[in-house]
């Protein structure tokens, strides 16, 4: 599928990258900026009303949710939430520490701070904000960053409050926990300058590195939440939300391009078949009676609960419902997602996949007969309470009509597999109005100057410095800059100058990655333990060869370095022990030495290392062996 020529397709991608800030308290109150493990003692219910937009119109999805009686249940505990999160007290003044971090990020991305920061209310009515809006403000505009020789525009740097944590959604209730609400987030929005999936990944990585350099954001590189705006020529602007990991970005872009291309091909196929919007029969046929005695459990249950089964006839659509959009995503899946969202149904059945699911050949035949569908037609059925079925099928019908035009503008949700699923219609132009409860913040030029003169070094400069000052390879230096151990590296090198910097760097990057890949939980190795590890090596109590085993053991047991050395029997051999072992091995290899002379050293080294790996320094051992051989062959 990556056979696409993205340039020809007119691919344009923009990123919205979010970083949670490591501040001591939240953005608009004094609650700690951290999730809570405390029990939720307080529960209360709210309803959010769609308010009029400037055009007197309301967000259709929001209005729909409200009409369907969506109730939001909030859970809170006293440690992580106060009346501000409950929307029972006006917000306090903005957290200046967060403003400083946001300005620092802005300056590192060459953006220009605004002169006055105005906090806005961005209407969000899904319940994730108790107020019904997210508080957000532009901190800087118009930046750029050079990535691999290409300049990528930065449209804006915003500072905003994180949303409440969704716990579950069932029926007409949605449950949120309030602890996360109000934690400061920085949003970096790029211009739509990105032209390929790989580039999208690279840009996200590069910006992530820069932001991480402040040392004031939470989590490690990659664990940031991102939204991606993707469009191709003749396709539509699709906003993909919640891409959970950096590494997923190229895949999500690839898949979305493929999905849009396939939808455009579907449009061609519809034309080729001579179909048009007028050929769609908008009738919902009641086919409940067809399935009175069905063996399909889903349908039987719906009927048993007093529900109905309605059918939608699609003349000439045979085969198109299984039209493939992505791996694991067919046109029928898209339609089902619409039915799920708008009708709160479990899904739909269609004739391209029937008989199946307990629905027999006879029932399909009867279904076709009842709605008057011919062989070349397709039929969709939906089951459930009458109102839900009607809402669901109406959404399906609308979506089918859009297929004649091409790709709909949508907000989609990224799945862990890298495909995207329908989430909701794209909201109109973001509706924002001033948060009048928060005073305007003047950005004093002196403040900007102070931050400017204290900017963290850019990753590219740090990489260069690590190569020059510590003699690291470029690869190692880059990996170090991407890691969370950069500061530890500097500390270790300062404390133990005798240790080769490359050993420290490779342990903190390559070795850790290797252990992680092997399933070792490296998050359980505290950084002071790593520091002790390097101290032990510097003091000759441990050889670097033993590092992987020691770390794996600590991650599993929580033991100290000394305990790990003891337990794994990785105590370095004393020079007496070593001499004895070497002379023993050499004397056993007489014939080898006679045949190969000094070249036998390698083989002898190998067989000793087999037994004593990690307890001996290889280069010292090699030297002792060579000396011993020389002594013998004189």
């Amino acid at each position: 599928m990556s056979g696409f020529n993205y340039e020809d397709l007119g691919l344009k991608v923009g990123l919205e990258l979010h970083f949670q800030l490591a501040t001591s308290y939240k953005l608009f109150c004094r609650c700690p900026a951290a999730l809570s493990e405390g029990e939720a003692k307080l529960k209360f219910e709210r309803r959010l009303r769609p308010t009029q937009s400037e055009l007197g119109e309301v967000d259709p999805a929001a209005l729909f949710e409200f009409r369907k009686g969506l109730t939001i249940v909030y859970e809170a505990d006293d440690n992580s939430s106060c009346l501000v999160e409950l929307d029972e007290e006006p917000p306090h003044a903005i957290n200046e520490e967060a403003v400083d971090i946001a300005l620092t990020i802005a300056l590192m991305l060459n953006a220009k701070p605004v002169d006055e920061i105005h906090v806005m209310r961005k209407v969000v009515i899904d319940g994730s904000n108790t107020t019904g809006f997210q508080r957000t403000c532009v901190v800087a505009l118009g930046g750029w960053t050079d990535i691999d020789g290409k300049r990528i525009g930065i449209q804006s740097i915003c500072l905003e409050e994180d949303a409440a944590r969704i716990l579950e959604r069932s029926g007409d209730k949605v449950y949120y926990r309030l602890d996360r609400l109000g934690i400061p987030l920085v949003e970096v929005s790029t211009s739509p300058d990105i032209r390929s999936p790989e580039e999208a990944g690279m840009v996200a990585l590069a910006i992530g590195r820069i932001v991480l350099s402040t040392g004031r954001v939470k989590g490690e590189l990659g664990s940031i939440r991102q939204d991606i705006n993707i469009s191709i020529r003749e396709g539509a602007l699709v906003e993909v939300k919640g891409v959970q990991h950096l590494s997923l970005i190229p895949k999500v872009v690839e898949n979305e391009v493929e999905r849009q291309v396939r939808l455009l091909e579907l449009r061609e196929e519809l034309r080729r078949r001579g179909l048009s919007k007028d050929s769609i029969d908008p009738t919902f046929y009641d086919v409940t009676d067809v399935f009175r005695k069905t063996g399909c459990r889903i349908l039987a249950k719906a009927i048993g609960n007093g529900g109905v089964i309605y059918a939608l006839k699609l003349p000439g659509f045979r085969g198109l419902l299984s039209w493939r959009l992505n791996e694991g995503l067919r046109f029928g899946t898209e339609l089902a997602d619409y039915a799920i969202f708008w009708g709160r149904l479990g899904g739909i059945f269609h004739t391209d996949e029937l008989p199946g699911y307990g629905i027999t050949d006879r029932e399909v035949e009867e279904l076709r007969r009842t709605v008057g569908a011919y062989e070349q037609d397709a039929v969709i059925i939906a089951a459930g309470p009458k109102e839900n079925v009607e809402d669901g099928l109406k959404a399906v019908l609308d979506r089918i009509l859009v297929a004649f035009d091409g790709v709909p503008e949508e907000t989609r949700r990224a799945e862990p597999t890298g495909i995207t699923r329908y989430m909701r219609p794209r909201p109109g132009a973001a509706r924002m109005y001033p948060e009048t409860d928060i005073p305007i913040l003047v950005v004093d030029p002196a403040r900007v100057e102070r931050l400017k003169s204290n900017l963290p070094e850019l990753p590219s400069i740090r990489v260069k410095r690590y190569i020059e000052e510590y003699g690291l390879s470029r690869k190692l230096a880059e990996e170090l800059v991407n890691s969370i151990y950069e500061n530890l590296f500097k500390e270790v090198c300062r404390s133990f100058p005798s240790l080769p910097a490359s050993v420290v760097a490779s342990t903190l990057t390559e070795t850790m990655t290797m252990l992680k890949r092997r399933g070792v939980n490296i998050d359980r190795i505290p950084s002071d333990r790593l520091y002790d590890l390097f101290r032990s090596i510097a003091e000759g109590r441990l050889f670097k060869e033993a590092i992987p085993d020691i770390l794996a053991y600590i991650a599993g047991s929580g033991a100290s370095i000394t305990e790990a050395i003891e337990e794994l029997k990785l105590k370095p051999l004393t020079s007496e022990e070593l001499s004895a072992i070497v002379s023993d091995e050499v004397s056993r290899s007489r014939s080898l030495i006679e045949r190969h002379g000094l070249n036998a050293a390698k083989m002898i080294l190998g067989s000793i290392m087999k037994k004593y790996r990690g307890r001996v320094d290889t280069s010292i051992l090699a030297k002792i062996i060579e000396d011993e051989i020389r002594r013998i062959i004189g």
Partner: protein
Amino acid sequence: MSESIDLQGYKGRARELLLSAGVRVGDEVRIIRDGIIYEGVLAPRVEYGGDEYIVIKLRSGYNIGIRVTSGDVKVEKLPARREVRYKPPTIPEAKADLPRIAILGTGGTIASRVDYRTGAVTPIFSADDLYGFTPELADIARIDVETIFNIFSEDMTPRHWSTIASKIGEYVESGVKGVVVTHGTDTMGYTAAALSFALRNLPVPVVLVGAQRSPDRPSSDAALNLLGAATAAAKAPFAEVVVAMHRGLSDDEIVFHRGTRVRKCHTSRRDAFKSVNGDPIAVYNSCEIRMLVEDYRRRGGIEGFKIEADFEDKVTLVKFYPGFDPSIIDWYVDRGYRGIIIEGTGLGHVSNRCIPSIKRAIDSGVFVGMTSQCIWGRVNMNVYRTGRELQAIGVVPLEDMLPETALVKLMWVLARASSMDEARSLMLTNIAGEISVRTSFRWYT
């Protein structure tokens, strides 16, 4: 539109630049400062903002402030992109078989609307606005909407109470099933008390309602409060003046507090209003009104209904505190005040040092009544010597009346009593549920 409105809030250099470019609030504008270009819609300037900034709403919807007092600044007017107008929702058709009620606007948070384009908060109150945020109203009643005035509740005076009372009177006489009065929450309790005394032999419910969160927010409590209030006006069995607000943190129940017993007890919560020394009389839940007490005034006929809406202005409420200077009382007396309600400590006390000044007040014909700053409970001035001394010089213990209610009641009483004895007798007579003879254990938790 006057020029001052065109450039809302702009002063000094910013205003000069905008005037010379011919830009008004709401126009598309381009500002170039030292080569950097900003484009958007000119937003109004808040009054307290400095005059060296121009605020624009960017195309992304965000507002930013641009400093125009330094560097090379140019302001240009751009051609209008599109005419954006607030389009009020269509008013749902009134259903002929529904009861008729009146909703009277007086201002406050509940009657504000945000202009999303500029961010200005406009105090508008019309039928359109009401239906805009609560279309369900059309299923409850046929509604007459009238704005009496549009003021913050802290600007309310006894004269405003009189106006509201006579306006309610007009509607009640025209046969409405109930009246809703929207009101700022800060002094809603005082107005509720005033109307409780002014509307004699009320035949229908009069429901005061406010909001703690403005209606422009999706989370506003205004809609549910208003639905509860309108439902009560249309079909509740009681005919009293009440305040309708959230019962708790959830958007489920609206509770109706008796007008003489209600107090705003929290600065910001939705459930800020509490009934003090009494029970709320009814609750609204899922479109239904349920009575919580037996003892309430039932709906009745119009006969006997009258309005006595005069209030004596020269009445004050004085809070005693340690170190209180008794000459404060002298000051009021010398200024011609006719009544003083004291918010004393505990069971109803003030320092002995105050006694000469209070005696002087009473001797010169000023009514002095005692309430307690404890808020909950009843005064009893027989327990301690100070209390007995205060009674001896003529201070009237006002039972379990709220200090604010006592103030309002005294204003009302002094406007009609012809003697001090009559005033004293009226103050101690329960007229609108403001005094109870028993103190229930339920009333304080």
